[in-house]
């Protein structure tokens, strides 16, 4: 546990999750380790299918029980391994200690339940001793806090009577009612338009400062992460390729994948004629075993050893790590032999 400290709230070690279909087994998360500090905002960035959501859902074992399996790994929350806990014990952690907001606010509210009941549901489960009126009062306060006007009448409405932005606010209220110490936001703004996006993010930030909770923000949008997070983890093909603070990542990305990813963001100041950059090739098939670096096939700096040896995570600074053999001093000579012309740094 290289990061372990008093402030560490969540510690994930070598997490492997896979999904099986009738014919094959897809390794969606392949050995992910990271940590989350108290009050910290951690961004997890990656393209579709890079295993971000599967990883987030593995943390509280929220994956479909039949097709998905957590193969190995440890998830320490306040020193206890969540993956070893019984379902019943987990029920006490879900919602109360770790809350989650889902991607599609249109689909994440039960259409047959009133808004109010849904907000109270979690609170009633964890704080059974409170009276009905107390719960209702708390729900109304919270609705007001997340910026919903006329909370009392919204309280009685059904989800289909609310707009997307309002539903996402309700989702936040649902996740916040038991004041969890970690909030996992799985692409919370993807299906909202840009103005609502900003509002929702600001709301999250505001609540975070008030409650002092940690947030794990999962997204594929770098622009969101830049203004919102303290630290960023970049995932590719189920692995963490780079992790750094926001400043480090944006000013000096180290991993070739991160560099290209950042390069492919459209820029307003780029000349009009310039084509948008895109990374050649496509992400590897996760149903086949990947021996070496998953990015090797698309990486111009790849040398022979990249294909059959999984790169270790190299420390660039105290808070900056990249899993790339470019930073392996032992491979320097080999690299020079194979690719004389290419010296990226």
């Amino acid at each position: 546990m290289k990061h372990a400290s008093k402030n560490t709230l969540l510690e994930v070690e070598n997490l492997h999750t896979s999904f099986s279909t009738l014919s094959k087994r897809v390794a969606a998360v392949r050995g992910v380790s990271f940590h989350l500090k108290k009050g910290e905002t951690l961004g997890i960035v990656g393209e579709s299918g890079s295993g971000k959501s599967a990883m987030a859902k593995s943390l509280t074992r929220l994956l479909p029980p039949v097709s998905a399996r957590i193969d190995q790994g440890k998830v320490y929350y306040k020193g206890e391994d969540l993956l070893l806990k019984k379902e019943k014990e987990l029920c006490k952690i879900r919602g109360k200690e770790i809350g989650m907001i889902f991607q599609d606010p249109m689909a994440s509210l039960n259409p047959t339940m009133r808004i109010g009941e849904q907000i109270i549901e979690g609170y009633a489960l964890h704080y059974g001793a409170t009276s009905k009126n107390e719960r209702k009062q708390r729900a109304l306060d919270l609705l007001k806090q997340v910026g919903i006007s006329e909370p009392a009448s919204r309280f009685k409405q059904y989800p289909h009577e609310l707009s997307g932005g309002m539903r996402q606010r309700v989702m936040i209220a649902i996740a916040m009612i038991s004041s969890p110490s970690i909030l996992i936001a799985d692409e919370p703004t993807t299906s909202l338009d840009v103005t609502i996006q900003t509002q929702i993010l600001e709301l999250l930030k505001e609540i975070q400062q008030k409650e002092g909770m940690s947030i794990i923000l999962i997204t594929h949008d770098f622009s969101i992460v830049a203004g919102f997070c303290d630290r960023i983890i970049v995932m590719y093909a189920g692995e963490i390729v780079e992790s750094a603070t926001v400043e480090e990542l944006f000013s000096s990305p180290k991993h070739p994948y991160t560099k290209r990813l950042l390069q492919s963001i459209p820029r307003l100041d780029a000349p009009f004629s310039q084509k948008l950059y895109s990374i050649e090739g496509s992400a590897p098939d996760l149903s086949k075993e990947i021996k070496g670096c998953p990015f090797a096939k698309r990486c111009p700096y790849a040398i022979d050893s990249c294909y059959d040896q999984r790169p270790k995570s190299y420390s660039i600074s105290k808070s900056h790590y990249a899993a790339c053999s470019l930073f392996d001093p032992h491979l320097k000579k080999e690299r020079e032999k194979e690719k004389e012309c290419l010296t990226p740094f």
Partner: protein
Amino acid sequence: MSEIELLDHPSQEIEEINEEELSYWKDAWLRLYANRPALSGLIILTFLALCAMIIPWLSGYTYYETHLELKNSPPSSTFWFGTDELGRDLFTRIWWGARISLFVGVTAALIDMVIGVFYGASAGFIGGKVDDVMMRFSDVLHSLPYLLIVILLMMIMRPGVATILIALTITGWINMARIVRGQILQIKQNDYVAAAWMLGASRWRILLRHLIPNAIGSIITTMTLTIPAAIFAEAFLSFLGLGIQAPIASWGTMASDGLPALRYYPWRLFFPAGFISITMFALNLLGDGLRDAFDPRLRI
């Protein structure tokens, strides 16, 4: 000095919260009440049920009393719906038959629903191997020829209402189970189910509060289709000798008795057939309305 004047902010005070809160059921009832066709369906069914309870005692005839000199007489002031081939009063027999038919139809549908929803929801919810085994078992049961099961039942049971109910429900629940399973499989993929898990809800809570309420539309629709089917199936079973035995009658047996006489004494078919039709019509209206009433998305 600015020329723009700020309007008063709307009061941010939390509004009065003591207003009466509608429960799920009360809300559904209000919505059903507002749905005129469904309400008329409900009124017709209630009327039929009340008549079936009261009229046999008031009509002045019994279902077995024969008037051989007045057989096959057309509707008149003495015999409102005419008489059958033994001169029994059809009006009285219709309402006796209503008791049997409505009872068998509704009870069979309810039993089917309880078993089918429980079985289908469990299979769909647990999923995986359990689902496979449960559904294959029901497939096997479903693939047994219905007539064979009925004949086997006839060997061991005496004809009567209980036997009919067993015969109707022994395979009848499978249809409901399949539909509910399919619905649950689909619904459990929804994010709101994952969200409920994430709140720390237990399995039972997820099943009862999040999955089944969202499947209630299909459950009710299937149920309203089961009732007329059960009324017909009862007629068929009675014809085979498993169900209601003469002289007592149900709508189904009366209709099948009346069919050969259609050309000369059409009222013997028309009255039972008419009542079956009215019941089905009312049931369909009610079922439609119930589905709408229970699903907030379809609110008018």
